[in-house]
């Protein structure tokens, strides 16, 4: 029944949930939360259906359907998934119910608007990853700013949320408008904005260089790459828990998706030309941000900086332009989406109880919160790249791919694994081990059932990806092979 229009249903379900939410009065906050959560769970089930029906043997776009047509300009907008976008859609629909469940008790004002913002965000994110048109990718890319800005500003923690919201908004906007100019140039020189057509067109060398740089300006802010990464620690630490989860989980991956879908296939010569630039910035990101983490006192900021480091690995993997590297970066994006989100959820658990994220107030949590400490340890090890978790598999693939391309970069990036271990273990040591410190905090409570349910799917997913990644890599193989062939 859903076969022919599964993507439209995926986008329409959250919007339907928004309409439902408008009719629920404010004296019934439980119903509001329930409706939001059920809608997002239904969307997740629908996307599992998408995965099951996905044909893994072809690199062509599947489930293609017409979104709408613009009159007088011969633009027909299609939606479709291939091996690359499938997993981003799945990641989005997986994380949104977790976000909504995680903010069950901590959001006390404007509950309905919160669920509406997240459902709207989900709909727009699915549009970003499935639309087969450059202009509409840009439109939805920018439209993500609106709910995120409101989420950070309205429900964020008190101190620096306004500065964080501004920085997030303006940084992303500056980069994006340069991408808009590049898209306009593409539109009027080629007469189309359809991705399927554009991937067959070759631009001349100098044009490619300029267009690649314009796209890079926007995607580099989003990924984020040093030096335009400054908005990330601010936005992550000031956003509410669920906001950080979706920010780290999916929004950073929009940049990676942009690279894989646009920069590399449409401008292959420019990608090869600028590979040293990307490598340099990524390696700087890995080493610099890992070392910066050592100075931080705010737990969320540590995890935010580690996100930048992981995304540095991702960009190294993508620009190796061989199959192992790109598969590694895709898997790393998925793994980081789950691991970073889970780490933010862990910090969120502690923040909900004691309203502070500063490390100095916590020590020896293992004594009173053993279940939480186990979960926290698991995700810290996953963050480090411990074998058996998904990060290990993906980082290994990235390094193998990078080794084929450039040995020096690989060496420097591998040291990043050591720095990663350094700050992760140190964070965990200070917070969970040691003597319990009761000078500031006197009452402790371990995870309750809701929070355990939030972590359980993340743990399962990380173990699954670490032990048997073939399930996920299977669907990607053909699309990524096709991508690499396009570059050659």
């Amino acid at each position: 029944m859903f076969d022919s229009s599964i993507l439209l249903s995926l986008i329409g379900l959250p919007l339907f949930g928004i309409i439902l939410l408008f009719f629920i009065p404010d004296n019934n906050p439980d119903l509001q939360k329930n409706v939001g959560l059920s809608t997002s769970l239904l969307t997740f089930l629908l996307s599992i259906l998408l995965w099951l029906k996905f044909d893994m043997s072809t690199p062509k776009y599947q489930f293609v359907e017409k979104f709408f047509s613009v009159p007088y300009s011969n633009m027909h907008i299609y939606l479709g998934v291939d091996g690359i976008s499938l997993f981003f859609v799945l990641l989005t629909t997986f994380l949104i119910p977790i976000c909504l469940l995680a903010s069950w008790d901590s959001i006390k004002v404007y509950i309905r608007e919160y669920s509406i913002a997240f459902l709207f965000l989900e709909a727009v994110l699915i549009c970003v990853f499935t639309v087969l048109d450059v202009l509409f990718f840009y439109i939805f890319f920018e439209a993500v700013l609106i709910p995120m800005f409101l989420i950070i500003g309205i429900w964020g923690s008190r101190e620096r949320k306004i500065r964080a919201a501004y920085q997030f908004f303006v940084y992303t906007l500056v980069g994006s408008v340069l991408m808009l100019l590049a898209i306009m140039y593409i539109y009027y020189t080629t007469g189309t904005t359809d991705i399927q057509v554009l991937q067959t067109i070759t631009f001349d060398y100098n044009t490619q260089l300029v267009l690649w740089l314009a796209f890079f300006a926007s995607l580099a802010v989003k990924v984020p790459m040093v030096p335009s990464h400054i908005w990330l620690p601010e936005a992550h630490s000031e956003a509410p828990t669920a906001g950080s989860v979706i920010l780290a989980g999916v929004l950073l991956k929009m940049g990676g998706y942009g690279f894989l879908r646009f920069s590399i296939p449409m401008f292959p010569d420019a990608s090869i030309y600028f590979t040293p630039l990307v490598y340099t910035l990524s390696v700087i990101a890995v080493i610099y941000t890992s070392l910066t983490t050592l100075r931080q006192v705010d737990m969320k900021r540590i995890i935010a900086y580690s996100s930048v480091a992981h995304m540095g690995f991702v960009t190294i993997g993508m620009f190796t332009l061989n199959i192992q590297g790109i598969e590694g970066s895709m898997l790393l994006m998925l793994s980081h989406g789950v691991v970073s989100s889970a780490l933010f959820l862990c910090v969120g658990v502690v923040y909900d109880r004691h309203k502070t994220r500063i490390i100095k107030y916590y020590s020896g949590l293992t004594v009173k919160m053993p279940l939480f400490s186990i979960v926290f340890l698991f995700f810290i090890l996953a963050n480090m790249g411990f074998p058996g978790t998904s990060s290990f598999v993906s980082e290994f693939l990235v390094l193998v791919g990078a080794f084929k391309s450039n040995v020096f970069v690989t060496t420097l990036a591998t040291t990043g694994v050591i720095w990663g271990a350094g700050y992760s273990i140190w964070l965990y040591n200070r917070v969970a081990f040691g003597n319990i410190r009761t000078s500031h905090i006197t009452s402790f409570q371990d995870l309750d059932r809701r929070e355990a349910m939030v972590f359980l799917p993340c743990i399962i997913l990380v173990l699954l990806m670490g032990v048997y990644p073939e399930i996920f890599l299977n669907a990607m193989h053909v699309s990524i092979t096709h991508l690499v062939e396009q570059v050659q």
Partner: protein
Amino acid sequence: MDFLTFFDNDFKILMPELYLFTATLILLSYGVLYSTSRMLDYPIIQLNVGWLSIFSLTITLFLYLGTPVTTMSAFNDMLIIDSFSSFMKILIVISSIVCCLMSLTYLENKKVNSFEYFILILLATIGMLCLVSTNDLLGLYMSIELMSLSFYILAAYKRNSEFSGEAGLKYFILGAFSSGLLLFGMSLIYGFTGLTNFEELSKLLTCINAMSDSVSYNGILVGLLFVTVSLLFKVAAAPFHMWSPDVYEGAPTPVTAFFSIVPKMAIFALLIRIFYSTFYDFLGFWQPIFLYTGILSMIVGSLGALYQKKIKRLMAYSGIANVGYMLIGLAAGTVESMSGLVLYLLIYVVMTTGFFSFILGTITEKDSKLNIYISDLDNLGKVNPALAFAVTFIIFSMVGLPPFAGFFGKFYLFLAAMQSELYTAAIIGVLSSVVAAFYYIRIIKLMFFGTSPIYTTYKPMDTANALVLSASVFFLIFFFAYPHPFLMCIHKASLSLML
């Protein structure tokens, strides 16, 4: 020629303008007779005249909607009616209706008890309608003067406020100065060509670039420069923008709304007609003028608004920035740029209408005042969430964020600019719109992010303002989904002018 030949064709062609003019005169005499009538104890017939003027504007609108879709000229080629002018006239009449609707509550609350306000708005509208369809330099001057004189008086309308008088005086002096420049330029053009009619001028000036060795046309260029500068004064483009913040701040708020919305449309329609149809061959001359003025306006408008504390001054600077974008569209010189310009005008008008209806509709409960300072808007998200969300949509559209209508306006405009290879202007344009985003989202911050402990409660919004606000928000949100009718009309209008 017999006077009666007027009734052959011209009367039918000019029926809507004639109707509006007659209605204005009748309303004027009605107002004078009844408001000075001692027998009826000097009644205050302001709202009465207001609704009657809205009524007559609506009938004029229907008369325009029934115009046949051909090109006609009246008064011995002095006025021309084609699809472009019909489209712009419909837009102008709709905007005037909306401005009248918005001002009713204000006039009632502030007890401005003279009915001439609406007569002046009707006269200004007639001036603008004639301006859009003028085909002759003299017609241009007469229409601009009719429009401007009404504006000068409207700016000074609040007689017990020095602020308003100062605004009117500044506007009058600057406006008279620019009209003088206009006359000088027109007389130079007449002196060097012997023609005042636009169509005959365009026929004379065909292929003038090819004849540049044998024909010296510098005199015409000087005249054209004066005319251009004068029109740029009237539309408040930088570096001729100095009067705009002061006049916008001092004039009563519904008059400010009228200033920001309607004259820009009329003067840009005129600019399109002059430069795309008459003087198109001088493209190499006027393109740099509009390009640099546009870039300067965008920069001045975006940077100037960052420090403003008052809402009306903020809107003045944002108007200057928007005029900058429109001038870039004008500079590009292609059919697509003209369509983009008209589309952007339409969307700009809707955004500004929505914003001003919000300002005019929020009256504080405590002392029945309008909001003057931007910081008066804080915590609106908690006090009146529906209103705050409506304003948020308007503001996101002004920033140019997809998927609202403002993005599409800017997109078409910059697309046309890139097609004409005005790359610098496009880059500066998008960067200045990012700078502009800063002060727009500051308003959202004030409304939602709860930084101030002051909460002001407002009276419920009156019907007229609420309808205007909701109509404009509806347009801005759903333009993305169904732009077909507007794009179709704009395409037809542009093609009818260029071909």
